[in-house]
């Protein structure tokens, strides 16, 4: 089955810093999403981005489907950005496969 790898696994930033999270996948995908999981476990939709580039405030994402990777950019990070970021892909099997996540901690 399709493999999803995220890097880095852990990231500590000072408030105001920028960061880039990466998601590599091993096969063509139909759907790709980025989520932020808050401390209470809720998965919050950030981007639905099987290809192309999108922006939403301080966050933006780019998926290069032909090269099988996606990037999530966080600019001017805030303490509320802390949590786990997941990339999830669906490759025609109706199930999303999640990466292992990037654990982000933003220090005040």
């Amino acid at each position, binding site marked *: 089955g399709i493999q999803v790898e995220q890097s880095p696994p852990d990231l500590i930033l000072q408030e105001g810093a920028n960061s880039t999270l990466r998601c590599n996948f091993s096969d063509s995908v139909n759907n790709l999403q980025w989520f932020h999981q808050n401390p209470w476990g*809720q998965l919050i939709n950030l981007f639905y981005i099987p290809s192309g580039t999108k922006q939403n405030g301080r966050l933006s994402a780019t998926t290069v489907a032909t090269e099988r990777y996606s990037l999530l950019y966080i600019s001017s990070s805030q303490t509320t950005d802390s949590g786990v970021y997941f990339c999830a892909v669906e490759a025609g099997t109706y199930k*999303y496969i999640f990466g*292992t996540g990037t654990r982000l901690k933003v220090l005040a």
Partner: protein
Amino acid sequence: DAGVTQSPTHLIKTRGQQVTLRCSPKSGHDTVSWYQQALGQGPQFIFQYYEEEERQRGNFPDRFSGHQFPNYSSELNVNALLLGDSALYLCASSWQNTEAFFGQGTRLTVV
């Protein structure tokens, strides 16, 4: 729009018991999927329901079963609970097989 709602939010069960978790999808969505998330790991796909049928199943034993009702809501049933079934159970809904939206989860503890 209420989004995806799950109940209960927390649950404690004893080994060997059975449990039923419930999910109401986001308005306009017709597809419901269930995921299990163990501590420190990413969510793992259990199964997906569409048109009241199980359309796809992950690598979970038959102790895990489900149902989808005509109003698209869904239940996840787990029989003969094991300690290893302790996890956060997440429900996701989507229209057809596009962007998935997740509920807040049910945290199950088996003692």
